[in-house]
């Protein structure tokens, strides 16, 4: 099968779906759902086609599309994927498809909801396939708006506060990115927004300029990850967001932060990356791991607990990236993928019980295992995955991260590894309070997982199990691009140090 412009298709099919939804009469609620499903399904198919046709032997950009857009500033419609982005494209397509089905319990304003969900989908996909900085930025910002409305209209009681907090935080981050983007444009010999060209001329950037840009970009991306101390919007957003939106938020959105650091900080500012990563990614990543886990332990809200655990697990990604070893950096991106699937599961599971009980107080449940055995079983599976149990996907990525980082930052690794005990602690404790013990009388009539809920969970569970035994399926995509990137940073670091003396 041949396909021209697969990246344009995969990005804009959801947008076409959005337009169809907008013209669909508001009364036809079921139609909106199925249009959304029909718009995300081809996206998943194209993602699989890309996976099939991706050349794993080269770190170069593939499926490239390059058209002029705004000539005064040499802006191009430039798309392409390498190993780093294709893994994120796969993740985005999968999570978006699943989140449509996880949204079926939404019972008001369906038309607007699915239209916004599809717009969000386009924005996220666009971020991962853009290679022109301007285009990247447009997609990066386009995504904010649907997210604002999805949290703000369909969210929980404090939704307005959470939505505007999310919007303001991320906009603050993105304007910093905009400034750096303009700075990079004018700094080089040839003004350009082309990320590959910017990376190619990175040797000519002075180290001071790189440092300033690096830190500004880092703040922009760290808000998205979210890295300590910019993380405070996330628990609010998660608690108020409807289930499917939490799934997307944790599954895909957070990865944009780390993806941005790899794609822009590492590739375009390698010397500064080499110099600054140990603190901004290593130390802050470790703080994320430990602090996130401790916060998770203190939560009584089921969803907030998962939100903090998500912050904690993103710390491993940062730590792996700071290691500049093949194992560490590959582990980091694999962890991005695995974190996407596992937290998506966890948030769906929270949604399942919230739909039935309409609250999420961990202490308000008890003994659900008797009433909902299947649900409890899958929750157990997801919790074990979250703890990083061998045989499940997160184990591989976390071990790779810790192994890679061990050679460089042993203290951080000790802290990170020790946190596994905390993680096991809060997850098991939570499991015990909700699922074990005597059944709370109030919940006697609860039905077990429906077919739809199972349909959203099982594919993720299968993937988690599969990647636990065969991580090569994703690693093979990554390694060439990542090792190349790692090499770029490693050579640029000492070169800059020499130039300094």
């Amino acid at each position, binding site marked *: 099968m041949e396909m021209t412009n697969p990246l344009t298709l995969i990005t804009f099919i959801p947008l076409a779906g959005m337009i169809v939804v907008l013209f669909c009469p508001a009364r036809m609620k079921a139609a909106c759902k199925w249009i959304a499903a029909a718009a995300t399904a081809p996206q998943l198919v194209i993602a699989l086609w890309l996976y099939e046709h991706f050349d794993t032997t080269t770190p170069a950009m593939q499926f490239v599309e390059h058209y002029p*857009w*705004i*000539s*005064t*500033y040499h802006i191009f419609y430039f798309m392409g994927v390498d190993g780093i982005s294709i893994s994120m494209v796969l993740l985005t397509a999968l999570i978006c498809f699943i989140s449509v089905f996880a949204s079926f319990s939404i019972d008001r304003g369906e038309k607007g909801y699915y239209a916004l969900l599809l717009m969000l989908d386009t924005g996220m996909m666009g971020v991962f396939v853009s290679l022109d900085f301007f285009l990247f*930025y*447009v997609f*990066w*910002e*386009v995504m*904010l*708006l649907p997210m*604002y*409305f999805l949290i*703000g*209209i369909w969210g929980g009681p404090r*939704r*307005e506060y959470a*939505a*505007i907090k999310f*919007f*303001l935080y991320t*906009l*603050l981050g993105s*304007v*910093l990115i*905009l*400034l750096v983007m*303009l*700075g990079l*444009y*004018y700094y080089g010999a040839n003004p350009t927004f082309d990320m590959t060209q910017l990376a190619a001329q990175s040797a000519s950037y002075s180290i001071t300029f790189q440092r300033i840009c690096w830190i500004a970009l880092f703040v922009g991306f760290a808000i998205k990850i979210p890295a300590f101390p910019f993380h405070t919007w996330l628990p609010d957003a998660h608690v108020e967001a409807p289930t499917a939106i939490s799934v997307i938020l944790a599954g895909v959105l957070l990865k944009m932060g780390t993806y941005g650091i790899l794609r822009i900080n590492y590739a375009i500012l390698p010397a500064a990356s080499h110099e600054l990563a140990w603190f901004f990614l290593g130390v802050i990543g470790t703080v994320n791991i430990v602090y996130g886990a401790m916060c998770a332990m203190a939560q009584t809200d089921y969803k907030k607990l998962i939100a903090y655990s998500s912050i904690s697990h993103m710390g491993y990604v940062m730590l792996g990236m700071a290691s500049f070893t093949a194992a560490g950096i590959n582990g980091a991106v694999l962890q991005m993928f695995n974190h996407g699937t596992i937290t998506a599961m966890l948030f769906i599971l929270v949604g399942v019980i919230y739909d039935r009980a309409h609250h999420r107080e961990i202490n308000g449940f008890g003994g659900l295992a008797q009433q909902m055995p299947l649900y409890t079983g899958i929750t157990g599976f997801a919790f074990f995955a979250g703890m990083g149990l061998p045989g499940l996907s997160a184990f591989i990525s976390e071990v790779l991260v810790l192994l890679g980082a061990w050679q460089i930052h042993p203290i951080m690794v000790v802290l990170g590894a020790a946190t596994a005990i905390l993680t096991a602690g809060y997850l098991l404790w939570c499991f015990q309070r909700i699922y074990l013990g005597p059944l709370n009388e109030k919940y006697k009539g609860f039905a077990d997982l429906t077919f739809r809920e199972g349909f959203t969970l099982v594919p993720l569970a299968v993937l988690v199990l599969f990647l636990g035994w065969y991580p090569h399926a994703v690693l093979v995509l990554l390694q060439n691009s990542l090792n190349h990137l790692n090499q770029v940073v490693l050579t640029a670091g000492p070169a800059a140090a020499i130039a300094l003396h």
Partner: protein
Amino acid sequence: MDLGNLASLRYFYPELLLTAGAMLVVLVDLTLRDKSPLGEVSLVITALALLLIGLEPLSSGTWLFNRMLVFDPFAIFFRALIALAALVAVWMSIGSDEVKRCEQGEYYAVLLASTLGMFLMAESVNLLMAYLALEFVSLTSYVLTGIMKRNRRSQEAALKYLIYGGVASGMMIYGMSWIFGLAGSLDFSVINRELLAGGHGSALAVFIALVLILTGLGYKIASVPFHMWAPDVYEGAPIPITTFLAIGSKAAGFALLTRFFYPAISHLSASGNWEGLRGVEWPQLLLIICAVTMTLGNLAALQQDNMKRLLAYSSIAQAGYALMGFVLLSNDGIRAMLVYLFAYYVMDAGAFLVVMIVANATGREDIGAYRGLAARGGTVPAIALTIFLLSLTGIPATVGFIGKFYVFAAAMQRQFYVLAVIGILNSVVSLYYYMRPVRAMFLEAPEEGAARCEVEIWNYGLMGILALATVVLGLYPPPMIDFANRSIHFFVGSS
């Protein structure tokens, strides 16, 4: 070229048409008992004026009427922009409940006359002509602001406008007399030659003259510290007039400001950058004005509960962004200013239009009237207003982002980093108040007994065009940018 009176007329068709149109409106008003076609007649006249501007020959330019006016690409840009603003204002007037209660004949005739005055502002190359054009615009604006004779707010606004305007133009003409004393002429090109030659005595004298002139122009574009009139006037005037003042009058002010500060008292160096008078630090002064205007406009807007006042402060802040392009002393900066003003025209007109639609439906202008708008049958206006407000914030995929991008890019190119950072932080602050109506419309429940939002077909049409333009130009700006690119050309004589 330097054309005499009769030879100039063939470059003057749009102005002639507007003059004839204004008189036609008065005549029709006198003869017809039913006044309703007046709006449509004016709409046709403004559309024709726009068409005539579009048909004008492209040339490097010429002087008209013995060097009173100039015909050049820069003037074409602003006349087109002002004609577009008039078109929107007239179109809105047709669908406005406030305007329907006014005297139709006077209203449309004065509106067309005001448009004529703004055209002349964009074309003047003589201080006297510039002053007359500016005063003409001011006087017609006072009338239009106070046109709702039985509305106290409208009367109060007109009076405030008049008093502030009187003071500002008095200071301005005083400044002009200093320039005349220093350069010995009112003609921009002579002023340029004399002042740049350096035989003008004290740089301080020139600076004082410039500050005085800036008072008058700063008042027209509502920049800090001459902005105090704007919120009251914007609130008191009928909404189509508010729109016209916010986009048309401001554009005309920027046109005259640019023509005076660039070709009249600076010169274009070989590098494509402009050089001001040595020792006269007006760029630094404007730099401060620009930063303060953005910041103050945005901070004040945070407190507003009336949508017209909110948009008034927002338009002060927006003028600050456009000024940012202006102060850079580069052609890229001027281009950024033109792009920004065009973008601002599209989005601000749209925002005011929705305010008018809501005012028509509910009779209210406070943010409370927007609560639950989407749930009260106003989904389409609510979506449109969201697009316009996001565009005013500068979120990508809207024309406002393109405008901001050009401004910030031009500032970065000239290494005005601090200014760029101030501008960018300002746009984050502005998000908060621009999202307040959005939150009210979509996130909050309607108030008890709130009226449903009905939209007239005329308003729907205009809203659709503006919303589409906001998004389409945001995604594909080259037509707008090419237009701006072609327009950075001032005719300064054949030498």
